[in-house]
């Protein structure tokens, strides 16, 4: 395992190698232009411009072109004992827009990603309902469907950074997140199909949801949320869910911590109280400085991060026009504004949102600057529609201490050096 962990500066060396190579190429091109020598990529007929490419059906289901094979999920081996019960990270440093392709969207399993066929799929609704029901996958497809884009963030995203700057890359510090367009049936529709008269007063009722895998990953959700915007989803980004994201059916709990988005959803029980399962007591509770712990911290606070430039995405083009970009999101609603600082939070500029923020979905922001080639301390600060403003790490620590593990939504700092390299740092 130690060979997987960074030897002194190995990854920085890799990034530098890329940066230097790109820098040389840029310099070469500039020199060629300066000398007035024409670019052979233009003046010489290239193979691809003369011969033929692949026919249709060369790849019945396509993967990204091989030049992009570094845009993949990555794992931090020392975090967990075993990959079966572990997590990996979305390569957010290399993506743009807001929709996360399923193939590189982070995975979190507690007993491994299981294979469950649609034909073998059953969903049970029981407990305080008028008629306990069993649905097949085909049954679910016959209910009215809705489409929504939502982010799914693990409560432990950025959890390794509580005590200090630790992991060098936006993928590792902020990559436990993805954002997809889900198609599915509202949980409300299914609960009403089973009938909620038996539950009586709904204001103090709960639903317990669990998966078909060995971990079951059971979670209790208050009825108010269950009837609000929770989806029982079977498609993501237009196609079937991937095995690792709960094929054939997962729960989508907009704005709330990813652990509640139960995969391979098999049972929904209406109850008069929470189960207090392992995942909502021993895990996903946040210990404060005095040793008491918050429970039921479901909503994900507003948060943002600059995805480029960042440690895995250094500046390779030297001074001049530079696109600073990143992601912002809030579990309480839509992002209304993102501020960016290049001097570690002394001065802020309002960034440009690529489009109006959507509720509980990722927003993409851009700030185009003319970089003078000097070092920067890049930060971003999200605002949501409730007026919440993303706090600094210091502000967060003042309330929560260092041992919360979960729900770290602090402002992130990247130290961008004059050579374009970036590093994860904390600043005063």
């Amino acid at each position: 395992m130690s060979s997987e962990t960074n030897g002194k500066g190995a990854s920085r060396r890799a990034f530098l190698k890329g940066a230097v190579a790109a820098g040389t190429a840029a310099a070469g091109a500039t020199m060629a232009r300066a000398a007035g020598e024409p670019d052979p990529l233009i003046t010489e007929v290239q193979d691809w411009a003369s011969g033929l490419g692949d026919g249709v059906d060369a790849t019945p289901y396509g993967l990204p072109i091989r030049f992009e094979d570094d845009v993949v999920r990555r794992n931090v081996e020392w975090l967990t004992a075993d990959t079966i019960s572990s997590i990996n990270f979305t390569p957010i440093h290399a993506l743009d827009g807001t929709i996360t392709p399923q193939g590189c969207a982070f995975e979190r399993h507690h007993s491994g990603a299981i294979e469950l066929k649609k034909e073998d799929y059953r969903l049970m609704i029981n407990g305080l309902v008028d008629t306990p029901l069993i649905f097949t996958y085909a049954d679910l497809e016959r209910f009215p469907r809705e489409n929504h884009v939502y982010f799914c963030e693990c409560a432990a995203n950025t959890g390794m950074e509580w005590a200090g700057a630790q992991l060098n890359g936006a993928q590792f510090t902020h990559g436990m997140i993805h954002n997809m367009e889900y198609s599915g049936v509202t949980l409300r529709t299914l609960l009403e199909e089973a009938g909620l008269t038996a539950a009586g007063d709904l204001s103090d009722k709960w639903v317990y949801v669990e998966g078909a895998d060995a971990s079951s990953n059971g979670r209790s959700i208050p009825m108010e949320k269950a009837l609000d915007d929770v989806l029982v989803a079977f498609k993501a980004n237009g196609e079937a869910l991937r095995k690792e994201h709960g094929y054939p059916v997962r729960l989508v709990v907009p704005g709330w911590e990813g652990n509640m988005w139960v995969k391979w959803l098999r049972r929904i029980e209406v109850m008069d109280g929470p189960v207090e399962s392992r995942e909502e007591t021993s895990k996903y509770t946040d210990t404060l400085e005095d040793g008491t712990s918050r429970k039921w911290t479901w909503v994900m606070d507003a948060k943002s991060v600059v995805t480029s430039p960042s440690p895995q995405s250094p500046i390779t083009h030297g001074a001049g026009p530079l696109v600073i970009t990143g992601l912002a999101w809030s579990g309480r609603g839509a992002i209304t504004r993102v501020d960016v600082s290049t001097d570690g939070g002394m001065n802020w500029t309002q960034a440009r949102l690529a489009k109006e923020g959507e509720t509980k979905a990722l927003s993409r922001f851009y700030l185009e600057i003319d970089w003078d080639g000097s070092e920067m301390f890049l930060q971003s600060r999200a605002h949501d529609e409730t007026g919440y403003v993303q706090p600094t790490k210091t502000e967060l620590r003042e309330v929560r201490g260092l041992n919360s593990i979960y729900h770290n939504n602090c402002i992130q700092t990247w130290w961008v050096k004059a050579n374009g390299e970036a590093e994860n740092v904390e600043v005063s």
Partner: protein
Amino acid sequence: MSKSLNLYGGTVLGAAVLLTAAYNFADRNITPMPGNADMMVATEASPYFSLIAAAEASAAAQEGKFGLGRPALPEEVAAWDVDVRPDGTGLPEGSGSVADGEMLFSEGCAICHGEFAEGVDNWPKLAGGDGTLADEDPLKTVGSYWPYLSTTWDYVHRSMPFGAAQTLSADDTYAITAYILYSNYLVDDDFVLSNQNFLEVEMPNADGFIVDDRDETEAHFWKDEPCMENCKDGVEITMRAAVLDVTPEEEGEAEEAMEEVNAGTATDEVIEAVAETAVEEAEVAALDMDLVSEGEKVFKKCKACHMVGDGAKNRVGPQLNGVMNRAMASVDGFKYSNTLKEMGEAGEVWNDETMAAFMADPKGYVKGTKMSFRGLKKDEDIAAVTEYLKSFSQ
């Protein structure tokens, strides 16, 4: 030709979509029907009208429901509804002693959680940590952190042991839970836990939790207008990730370097690689591939602890590439039991016979083995897994 075909297909599809839309609207019973029906239907003679009317009538009969799914049978609910709540709701009758729990724990849990529930490597520690929650490095265990005993019972019964969930009886679960309590010094060694005395056990951190209070304690994060200019005097680096240096190395760097080295002079290597592949294929061809694929399914039981195939590494158990016809206990870097080490040193080899004997009764064949697996009952499963392992000869 293709153009006219497309147009025709489009027409049919369009009609189908309209029909579906009509059904959908009628079925949903959300949008007030008359308005939509008027808009969509020009005359009563239209076929859509009767469709909508029929659907509306049936929906009304079910009081806004769709009539989908079927009632769950009591046996089905009993099979899946096994959750246990803090007040004991859901606990089945039964009991188990600390002594029985210790044996079960040693056999099925200790490989990850340690003989005394102290945890192995990164696997969860289940005992200890009393009074550490406010420390710099709190140790959260069943004893020091978990607020409800029901959670332990529920989780052990539903999801443990890792790789063989839902195999423990109620009595076994009471016993294991009792042992975990004992390992946390919460009960004596003669304690017997049952559904009768379950609620009498006091959990030390039962009062250690508060409900999410961010709206109050973090109200100052809702700011009217945060500072935009000259917000602080200066900025200094207080901590650097490169100092800790725990970021995973860029994957593929080594391979890239190799590619560079090989570029241009690869002919010999390519030939060699092709030759190796040919040999591998010849070996694989001698296998019964049906049996191999059967074995792959059975091997799922082994996967929780063993890896096999490309990049397989030692985990809870040793990696199994080339295990067949290899000396016992010979994988580098894996800590075998003393018995297995001695067998290996005595020249014993994994072959059809020895592998079958071990898989049938691991603890009987290798006394003191670390493998907590109970063994495969069926000879055909053993043969299948053996064939599967042979397909990874190296």
